[in-house]
């Protein structure tokens, strides 16, 4: 059996990175773009953990945890901003002003689907 070395991990990570970049550049649907960005960040994490094992120090793993946290918060914020700006839903403002937002009912199918453009 061929032993799995650091290079193998790096090749997998580079492949993930390539898939992610091509996904971002070619797709227009926000959800798929977001998933492609997550793929790139997973490539980053794979790199970091592989290098961390190669060098025998934990710094890369610590970095990987921070990248994961950043990725999670980015995804939340991106989807939130997209819904507010592109679908016209205001949760707090509408509730406070007691005016029903005309777009509120259209939230489920109002999610922008760029492929349809």
């Amino acid at each position, binding site marked *: 059996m061929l032993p799995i070395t650091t290079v193998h991990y*790096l090749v997998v990570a580079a492949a993930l*990175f390539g898939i*992610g*970049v091509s996904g*971002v550049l070619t797709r*227009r649907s*926000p959800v798929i*773009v*977001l998933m492609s*960005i997550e793929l*790139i*960040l997973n*490539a*980053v*994490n794979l*790199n*970091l953990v592989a*290098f961390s094992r*190669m*060098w025998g*120090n934990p*710094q*890369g793993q*610590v*970095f990987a945890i*921070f*990248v994961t946290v*950043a990725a999670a*918060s*980015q995804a939340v*914020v*991106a989807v*939130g*901003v*997209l819904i*507010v*700006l*592109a*679908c*016209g839903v*205001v949760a707090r*403002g509408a509730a406070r002003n007691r005016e029903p937002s005309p*777009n509120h009912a259209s939230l489920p199918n109002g999610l*922008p689907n*760029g492929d349809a453009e």
Partner: protein
Amino acid sequence: MTGLSPIDYRLMLPMVELTIFALGLLLIDLWIPPEWKWLNATGAFIGVLFSALCVWQIQAILPPRGQIGFYNSLLVDRFAIYFWYLFLAAAALTILGSSRYLDIENEHRGEYYALLLISVVGMMCMAAGIDIVLMFVGLELTLIPAYLLFGFRGRHGKEKENHARAREAVRKFVFHGLFSSAIFAYGLSLLYGFSGSTNLAHIVRALGAVNPRDPVVIIALLTTITGLLSKIAAVPLHRWAPAASETALTTISGYILSLGMAAAWVLFLRIVVFGMLPLRAVYAPVLTVVAIATLTLATVAALMQTNTKRLLAYSAIVHTGYILLSFSVIGSERIASPAFFDALKAMLIYLPVLTLMNLGAFLVIAALRQGAVLGDDLADLTGLFDRSPFVAVTMLIFLFSLAGIPPAAGYLGKYYIFRSLVESGHRSLAAAGVVFSLLGLLYYWKIAKPIFTRQPQPNPPLPVSLGMRSTLAITALATLVIGVYPRPLITLVSWVLGIAQATHVAGK
């Protein structure tokens, strides 16, 4: 590893203090009745002042070579202190100018100020980071609140829904921003692979030993620099800037394009100039090409705009191009040669001036917001001199500064950049820079002309709130004073660089 010492706590005090104020504002906002919302702005302003006080205390005890703390991840040197003051000052001005504007937009919320403060904390992390983990976290901490602030729509946004346009802006600003952050992180992971350490000082040493023709080294350079170039809005990756500028509330546009751009530049200087110093001969030609492309495309695009906010965004991109020009000097000159230092000096002078004048110009547009007038169309500026001579004169000062006409401060940075280019023998680049400055007069004239156009029936005078008035006065005055009497700023920058050349970060 031992625990943290008191000096560590002291170094992070300005950031911790801002974070506490931000969280406090989020809580207090729940109890403030709508007509007392200006208390939020006051609280944020006090927070920034306290933070500046903490920075001042650190500066008093700072050893000349800077102080490393927090398990070697935080390096507070004169460079960091310089930019901390800049960030805090610009944030204070933004807060001062926002209060009335948010009333008009019906967006007066504590979250606005809390996010602003947290974003400043991220910028301070970037300026003082020497560990790539801290720098990455700082970048995300700056960008995520910026995306959220971009999501504030204001009264206009709620009344005049334009979903297709907003969706395009979200795609360009938020999604491409996340994309470039991810590419940047990939580059950082490869840098960690070369050095086995996340510390920038170790990375510099490891990069000094690698073969610059190694494809993996090239990929690491390419991904890291691409990510950073996108943050400073260099040309192939610049499209987020006009989109964000047009869609966001005007104060937020100003905040993103002045303060956010300056913070991105600080990160760029730390990582590309200091962290990748051994490889500067490899990346400098690429950056020079990018600079020329940026100048050309942004100038052409700026000439075609009719929206003031988009025009100012393109003008900010042009200024990015000018600063990038100085990388040809950094690539070709020996470290510690006079031209090398002139190039660094030029960048350090350029950034605060650019921040001030851009912020000022955007705040003038925010001052125009009134009733149904959004203020971002060039036609909204018509007859401004008759409506409010004060605002018109401050706008003129900012435009002079942006165009680089001597009484205002903008010419200083350009002068130093062109001088360092000539000193190092890049005469053709210096000439190109001068040509682009002259072309710049054309599109700044497009903003200046309507201001002094007289209308047959003059519009009613423009009411300007006290906060906005004082912000504009301070910003314009600072721009003028720096331009007329530049010696203190130049001395300050030499003081900052006097140490940057000695630290191990600059590499030997």
